[in-house]
């Protein structure tokens, strides 16, 4: 039966393709999903949103019985196309997987077997479900690859996942999921870790699949993505549904406070100058703005090359120039590999530029000896994406911050912890026992210990859930207001950069392609690349409001 035929049939009977009632899942007596119910009709897309640990993935995987042997699942009803799944035997589950339900995981680098060729991976569901002879399977693989927009399918089929870009890998994964034309496609964070432009392409691909009548269950933490694709939304929190309804309604007029907070927490052009986390700013006098013409850090024509493993030189940063004024935030935005991090490293004088120079507080910075830099170093500090690896694994939080304070005994560990909104008793704990947001606060506290003039942030919130991200971003705003610290803020997330930055650099392939105030660059981009970048953003609800 072809899919349009199936679509017509489904629409005619108006029977839901997926129906779940009173679903609960527990692991070792620990309930992860509780009393979840939903139905989904053919050709529609249901998005399950929530932060990490909300139970959204577990809920979706129930439809494939992929939660592993440790899972304890109870439900009044789980139906797929009218078939009761609650009493299915393992063999029957295997017949269902891949044939009636396709499953796309995030991060295709590890979701495709790195030792097997792309063609073999896509052919696997065909082989498992006895789809024709070998030749027919190979033919079908090529069809699928072109269907999902992979160029040169013959070549790609013979390649390994590591030889493909992230976007192509994700397409291949979708091709494998679509191989047997399943009724339902579950896409679990299909665009996370992809660059904005690639993300847009993948979302387009899923939209096409929906148009062809596939029913899609989309799992995402990103409401922007959801907005783009989903017809209905389930908002989950701590294993329970807090709100559900048509996408536009839920996003524009969220009823549940949790949903409201979640939406408010998303940074964008329109959130600039507002609180994301819903908390009040601390009552401190803002540091007066320094004169407009003062320059804290100046980079002039810096370039950096590396020798690749094949012996070829590749330039990572090419002739980049910028200035940072005291107390302002300069954002650098760009896709992966655009040279943002190397630029930050050169600014920190941790990497020596091949050409060009950096000066700090009107003194030479990149060209002097490390010995001479050392006394100045406390004035410029850094916070990375993964704070844990930047902490000495032997030390407690108190020791980590205390070490950074040594010699600059102006404030105490307790004061610094208080500055970043952490309780004093955290000082005795080990970073391993802290949450991601807490760790990042500790890293910020350490960076503040030397009362720096400039703080460099390299993707500081990329690994955080949106509500935690909101808190950290608010914290950064507060700290800047209080101490007058200048920020060099690097992120791939345009919303975050826009929210926080006064001025913005857009980087591509090691070069600065556009520069200006944040509002200029994001509302009236001049360069085609910046335009493309912004165009690829999923539609933002705020812009519609």
């Amino acid at each position, binding site marked *: 039966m072809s899919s349009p035929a199936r679509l017509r049939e489904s629409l005619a009977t108006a029977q839901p393709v997926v129906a779940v009632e009173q679903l609960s899942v527990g692991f*070792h007596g620990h309930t992860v999903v509780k009393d979840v119910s939903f139905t989904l009709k053919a050709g529609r897309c249901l998005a399950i949103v929530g932060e*990490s640990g909300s139970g959204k993935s577990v809920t979706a995987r129930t439809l494939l019985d992929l939660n592993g042997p440790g899972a304890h699942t109870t439900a009044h009803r789980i139906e797929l196309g009218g078939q009761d799944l609650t009493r299915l035997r393992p063999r029957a589950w295997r017949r269902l997987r891949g044939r009636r339900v396709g499953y796309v995981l995030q991060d295709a680098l590890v979701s495709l077997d790195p030792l097997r060729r792309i063609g073999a991976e896509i052919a696997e569901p065909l082989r498992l479900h006895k789809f024709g002879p070998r030749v027919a399977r190979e033919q079908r693989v090529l069809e699928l690859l072109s269907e999902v927009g992979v160029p040169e399918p013959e070549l790609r089929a013979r390649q390994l996942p590591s030889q493909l870009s992230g976007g192509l890998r994700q397409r291949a994964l979708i091709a494998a999921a679509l191989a047997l034309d399943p009724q339902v496609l579950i896409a679990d964070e299909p665009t996370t870790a992809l660059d904005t432009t690639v993300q847009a392409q993948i979302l387009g691909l899923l939209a096409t699949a929906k148009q062809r009548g596939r029913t899609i269950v989309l799992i995402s933490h990103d409401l922007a993505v959801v907005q783009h694709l989903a017809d209905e939304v389930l908002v989950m929190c701590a294993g329970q549904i807090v709100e559900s309804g048509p996408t536009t309604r839920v996003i524009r007029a969220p009823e549940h406070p949790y949903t409201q907070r979640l939406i408010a927490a998303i940074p964008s052009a329109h959130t600039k100058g507002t609180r994301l986390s819903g908390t009040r700013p601390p009552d401190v006098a803002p540091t007066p703005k320094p004169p407009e013409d003062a320059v804290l850090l100046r980079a002039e024509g810096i370039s950096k090359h590396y020798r690749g493993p094949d012996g070829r030189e590749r330039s990572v940063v090419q002739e980049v120039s910028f200035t940072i004024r005291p107390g302002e935030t300069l954002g650098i935005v760009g896709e992966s590999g655009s040279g943002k991090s190397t630029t930050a490293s050169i600014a920190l004088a941790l990497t020596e530029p091949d050409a060009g120079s950096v000066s700090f507080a009107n003194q030479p910075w990149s060209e002097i000896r490390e010995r001479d830099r050392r006394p*100045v*170093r406390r004035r410029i500090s850094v916070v990375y994406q993964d704070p844990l690896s930047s902490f000495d*694994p*032997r030390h407690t939080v108190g020791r980590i911050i205390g070490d*950074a304070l040594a010699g600059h005994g102006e404030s105490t560990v307790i004061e610094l912890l208080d500055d970043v909104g952490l309780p004093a008793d955290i000082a005795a704990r080990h970073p391993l026992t802290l949450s991601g947001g807490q760790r990042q606060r500790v890293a910020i506290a350490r960076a503040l210990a*030397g009362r720096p003039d400039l703080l460099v942030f390299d993707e500081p919130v990329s690994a955080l859930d949106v509500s935690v991200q909101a808190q950290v971003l608010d914290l950064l705003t507060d700290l800047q207001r209080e101490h007058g610290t200048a920020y060099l803020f690097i992120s791939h997330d345009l919303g975050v950069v826009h929210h926080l930055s006064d001025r913005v650099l857009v980087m591509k392939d090691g070069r600065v392609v556009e520069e200006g105030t944040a509002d200029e660059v994001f509302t009236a981009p001049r360069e085609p690349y910046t335009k493309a970048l912004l165009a690829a953003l999923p539609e933002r609800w705020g812009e519609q409001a």
Partner: protein
Amino acid sequence: MSVLTVPNAARTRRTPLHSAGFWAALAFGVLVVLAAAVPRLLTGRDPLDIHLDQSFDPPSVAHVFGTDQSGRDVFARVVYGAGQSLLIGLGATALGLAGAVVLGLLGGLGGRALDAVTTRFIEVLYAFPGLLLALILIAVFGNSAGTQVIAVGVASMPGYARMVRGQVLAVRGSGYVQAERVLGRGPARILVRTVLPNAFRPLAVLITLGVGQAIVWAAALGFLGLGVQPPAPEWGAMLNAGRDYVQQAWWLDFFPGAVIVLFTLSLTVLGRAVRAVTEPGGRR
């Protein structure tokens, strides 16, 4: 345990303190150390005293591990042998580690050229099966307990050296060393306060595991008749002596061997426990 990483599900890590194996290993380890320190506490018999009328008595209440060809009590010999074997194991491990730390630090901290030279040297040594290296040294220096320690020590050196070098390099390239640089710390301070302590963190585990390995190697040499000579009660030498009587007096080889196995096993278990405690991030 689920195949998938379960978000927020309480993943209780089994601590060593909850495992019966850990306690058994600890108890046995303590017993062996006790035997090495105060053998009199465990046996009233003299390990060298002969009783020709009691030769080859099988294990009994009077002689729990039986007696040997001269009527000496095997249990007493095993107990007294603990000191010798432990000394050889510790001595060899100390020697191996000392050499390895020098080599590893040269490789990990020296310049590119020095690293290349030491790394090649380490790799050359590493190309030799440990026991073979030990045998070569014994061939050259002759056969004695001292040579046994040196041979086992040198044989274990390349393995340690590789690990120390790798560890130093890993720590040097780590985020927290970079964080120290950003704080404006000098290289000497970073080396002493951060690189070395972190690079040597796994050494506690290595020593625990290494002593066991060294004892096995030393016993292997003893088994080949090299090293400590009879009648000294050393485990390897006892194995060698018992080998000739294995068909009629199995207990001569069985018990010293079993004690070596149990002891190394205990050290392995304890080493893993130490690792679980000192490296909360998990295995390397």
